[in-house]
């Protein structure tokens, strides 16, 4: 049982919360919480059906910080609410809080501190740093950076079970939330930058026993490729391509971590998950197609056997194929209704895939990019992608390694048919270097300087018309959008920025309707839920961290332009922090 903490934080806003109770219905609020299995399909679309706060009255929102977690560090996880409790999990050291917002001042019903292993902090590099919590039935599931998945009782915080999954000595960590699918908890690892071999594992929701674990590189047996595997691209139908497309024994430290979003489609009974970039980032050290990294798997949740695989971006010469947040969508495509999967990739292309057969339907750039979509849309045979020479700087590569879009989840609004993408427009100078693999130490193999694009701003919110395959509108932002986007039935698009602004835009034309200045950068996705008094609440977690916030969090020195893999210098204009700990902000209509 994690020890109970009483937190003396004084909550200025508490006075306003009189008689607040939470109504259980969490109609698909945060992208991460899949409390209501029925809304599974629309969970990945980050669309909330609540429409009390709408384009008309959003200007009158009031609220502010209600709870400071006291944990310094990046806060990428959004709050999730169920029953009358709101659950928060901070970044490292991954403390979990359950808050009762019912009384006058919100109090901590219970909290749980998993005492993580210090080594993990050194292994938390530059990808996603979200850990949960995820509510399912009576249980709450959460991951910790040092590689454990823990299940707690939603009401009391008592621990049901805890399973150690990632091996820190190999550089493996967990950096994405678990996903509950049909009685199983699916967990993917992180650690591309340390040469850790990517895997996805399934635990039994009741006992935490490991049911199966499938890897991203290696022989077919370890990847779950068997008779039922029928990729759409004929070239992927060979045997042991996870070994044949690598130099001898290079696949053993080949990366391909599963730190993007894992989605379960109950209708097709398929689990979809992306695989991260290949290691090392110097493509000359890993000649070949480096299967199954930088792609998308569809697997059977029972056995983990792969059903199909599609590759995004061949050989990934500039290491942009990292984390991705896919969106499932059932929509008409060229006349016939198809089950789609939208994959906004780090190389700046939005791939549309038929999630039944794994056929690549479209690949269109949603921002300025110099990458080739490879495979360039359906049927095009891709030539060998030239990998840059070692020890020579290649300049002005757009988008940078941090990706055109990355850890932040996009949102799709069925009312407007637009996909709202949080975009980062940074460019980089990239010098591939020889990298020698040493377990538990970085295995990157590149010198990188990141810089804003020559013309204009470093970030944007792009509203992408899925059917017309072009951007409806695009609003520029001074800094990259690191956090997720939330769309609501009230025709609002809500997101937080690195310089601490919470913004709401009109879903139709993108006009800025309301903004609120928080005291710390935001890399989490906003969440919305109905409270017991029937009012809709907007919840946002602040706490700069993750890839873009590393400069602030680790006090990096921008004089070294390669600090923070180049991001310290690129974002040196970020305002310095005033608030030191991750804080929950709540807003409601007066």
């Amino acid at each position, binding site marked *: 049982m994690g020890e109970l903490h009483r937190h003396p934080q004084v909550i200025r806003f508490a006075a306003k919360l009189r008689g607040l109770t939470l109504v259980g219905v969490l109609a698909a609020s945060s992208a991460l919480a899949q409390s209501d299995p029925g809304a599974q399909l629309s969970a990945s679309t980050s669309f909330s059906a609540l429409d009390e706060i709408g384009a008309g009255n959003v200007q009158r929102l009031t609220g502010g910080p209600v709870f400071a977690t006291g944990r310094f560090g990046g806060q990428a996880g959004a709050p999730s609410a169920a029953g009358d409790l709101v659950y928060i999990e901070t970044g490292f050291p991954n403390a979990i809080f359950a808050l009762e917002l019912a009384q006058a001042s919100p109090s901590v019903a219970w909290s749980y501190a998993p005492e993580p292993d210090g080594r993990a902090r050194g292994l938390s590099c530059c990808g996603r740093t979200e850990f949960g919590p995820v509510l399912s039935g009576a249980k709450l599931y959460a991951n910790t950076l040092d590689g454990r998945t823990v299940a707690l009782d939603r009401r009391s915080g008592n621990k049901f079970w805890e399973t150690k999954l990632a091996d820190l000595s190999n550089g493996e960590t967990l950096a994405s939330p678990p996903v509950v699918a049909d009685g199983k908890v699916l967990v993917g690892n992180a650690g591309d930058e340390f040469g850790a071999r990517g895997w996805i594992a399934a635990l039994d929701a009741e006992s935490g026993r490991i049911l199966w674990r499938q890897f991203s590189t290696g022989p077919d047996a370890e990847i779950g490729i068997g008779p039922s595997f029928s990729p759409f691209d004929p070239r992927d139908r060979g045997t042991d391509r996870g070994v044949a497309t690598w130099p001898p024994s290079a696949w053993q430290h080949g990366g391909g971590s599963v730190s993007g979003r894992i989605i379960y489609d109950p209708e097709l009974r398929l689990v979809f998950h992306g695989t991260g970039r290949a290691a090392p980032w110097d493509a000359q050290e890993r000649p070949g197609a480096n299967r199954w990294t930088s792609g998308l798997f569809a697997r059977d949740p029972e056995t983990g056997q792969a059903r199909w695989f599609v590759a995004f971006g061949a050989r990934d010469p500039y290491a942009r194929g990292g984390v991705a947040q896919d969106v499932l969508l059932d929509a008409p495509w060229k006349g016939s209704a198809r089950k789609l999967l939208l994959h906004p990739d780090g190389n700046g292309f939005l791939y549309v895939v038929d999630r039944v057969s794994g056929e690549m339907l479209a690949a269109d750039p949603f921002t300025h990019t110099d990458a080739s979509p490879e495979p360039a849309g359906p049927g095009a045979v891709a030539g060998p992608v030239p990998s840059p020479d070692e*020890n*020579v*700087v290649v300049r002005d590569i757009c988008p940078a390694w941090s990706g055109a879009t990355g850890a932040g989840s996009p949102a799709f609004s069925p009312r407007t048919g637009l996909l709202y993408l949080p975009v980062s427009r940074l460019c980089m100078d990239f*010098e591939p270097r020889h990298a020698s693999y040493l377990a538990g130490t970085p295995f990157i193999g590149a010198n990188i300087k990141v810089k804003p694009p020559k013309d204009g701003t470093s970030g944007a919110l792009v509203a992408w018309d899925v059917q017309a395959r072009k951007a409806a509108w695009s609003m520029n932002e001074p800094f990259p959008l690191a956090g997720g986007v939330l769309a609501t039935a009230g025709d609002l698009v809500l997101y937080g920025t690195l310089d601490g602004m919470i913004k709401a835009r009109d879903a139709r034309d993108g006009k800025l309707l309301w903004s609120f200045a928080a005291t710390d950068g935001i890399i989490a996705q906003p969440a919305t839920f109905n409270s017991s008094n029937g009012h809709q609440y907007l919840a946002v977690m602040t706490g700069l961290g993750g890839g873009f916030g590393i400069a602030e969090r680790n006090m990096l020195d921008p004089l070294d332009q390669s600090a923070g893999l180049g991001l310290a210098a690129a974002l040196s204009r970020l305002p310095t922090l005033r608030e030191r700990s991750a804080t929950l902000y709540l807003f409601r209509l007066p």
Partner: protein
Amino acid sequence: MSTLDISSDPRDTGLDERALARRLADLWQTPRGIIGTLSSVDHKIIGRRYIVTAFFFLLLGGVLALAIRIQLAKPENRFLAPDLYNQVFTVHGANMMFLFAVPVMEAFAVYLVPLMIGTRNIAFPRLNAFSYWIYLPGGITLWVAFALDMGPDVGWFAYVPLSGPQYGAGKRADIWAQMITFTEVSALAVAVELVVTIFKQRAPGMSLDKIPLFVWSMLVTSFLIIMAMPAIMVASTTLILDRLVGTHFYNPAEGGDVLLWQHLFWFFGHPEVYIIFLPAVGMVSTIVSTFARRPIFGYLPLVLALFATGILAFGLWVHHMFVVGLPRVGESFFTASSMAIAVPNGIQIFCWLATLWDGRPVFKTPLLFVIAFIITFVIGGLTGVMVASVPLDTQVHDTYFVVAHFHYVLVGGAVFPLLGAVYYWYPKIIGRMMSERLGRWVAGLVFVGFNLTFFPMHILGLIGMPRRVYTYGPEMNWGSINLFVSLSAAILAAGFLLFFVDAIRSAFSGEPAPENPWNAPTLEWATSSPPPSYNFERIPVVSSSDPLWETPETLPVATGLRTDRRELLLTSLSEANPQARESSPRDSIWPFLAAIATTVMLISSIFSAWAVVWGSVPIAVTLIAWFWPKGTPEDAA
């Protein structure tokens, strides 16, 4: 203009020779004492210092050569550790090229050219003093650094990136680059002086077709220096900037290029070896003409050959880079130009042979060295033609074949004529004869020792021994030839030692030398040995290219120069018609102090880039004081 009114007639017309000599001696004499010697501007004193210092560096360099031969005498030898060996062969190379070869040739020119063209001092004599005082600290810096385990260890041409910021740890490559700056500044200064002296201060009547061949060769060499040295100055400066200030000229990652260094260095590198060779050509022409007892055959072809060599020298630097992977067509052009330069050399050899054929050779020591030169240099020239072919060069480049080649053309081609020139001009410079008997032994030992040492190196190169290896395995079968080479090196060393003994002994106990011991035709033999501080009582007038053979007893002279200030005659460029009685600056301590200021600036700029800024203040001060007129009679116009 106001002329200084002096009671007695200042001109030298009416004076008899002894009175004139006494008056000129007081005027031109270098004052006694430390300050006097430090501020001397007499080209003969500075020339002598240069020669002695250069030969001292030759001695030091020779000791290093012996150390190399001892280390390579047998396989897996432990006489020199690898780090020390790298320093030894780098300092041997850099010392021989920068501190001995170029300075000694210029030293002979500084001493002899004013005498051979019949003038009283070199142009810009204070710049001449400055050039020596900059050359000396350059040498001291290199050898003191070597003594402090800081000697450069990157080869005499210091290829980047080994000499670059990442792989050239410590200050060793900086010492190399700064030593280059010292020696190049002094070489450029002397080159400018020689050009102006030869253009403007020739004796009346010495038109272009009457200039002695040694003076022609020094003129072409000076132009080579003026056009080639800036390349090494740019190269060494950009290398120091890369190492100390973080520029990226030679960083392939940030747009620089490693071959840029090789192009810059060899654009200077090849003219450099002709800067060393052409003066030797001048010496050989002089010695052959004197000891064949007839004017040189083919004066015009020889002069044109000098110019052809000078021009072609700038067109073939890429033959040092045939194996770096340049496009084939570029390399073919440079094969053709490298082959073409053999033609002027051929013309020179044939003209000398024709002179000897038609003359009546007198077998004195200088001629013995010339004979040794012809036999040895032709081998070097021919191996040069061999390495000029691209495919052939891919087999022999950077092997001991090339080591043999450049020793044949440098030692054979320049040091043999230099030794002959020492024996030839020693009586004029020191006033005493060197011994003929020892001279023959030196010539014999050096010739035999040299060929026994360096000819087997051709074989070593062909059987696969690369350059600059501090040791080799017993399984390579190079042991026996290397032992043979090391033993023969002892003979060569003995020869040089005997030469030094003869030179030093003759300075004290050699028989006094008459004005013209060899009955040579050129003007420097028309004055006493050693010449007085003012060279000639009266400036000679010339009417033939061999004046002393034209009028053996009497010397036509010009009168009218003043005796109350240092005066010499300026003549026109082509016909040498008298134009003005220009004054020659007096002694001054400022060149020495300016050299000290420059030395302090250059050495401390290795340790901090700001030294260049604050270091230039004392230099400016000393230069201003140097040029500020002192109101002496010489300043009147």
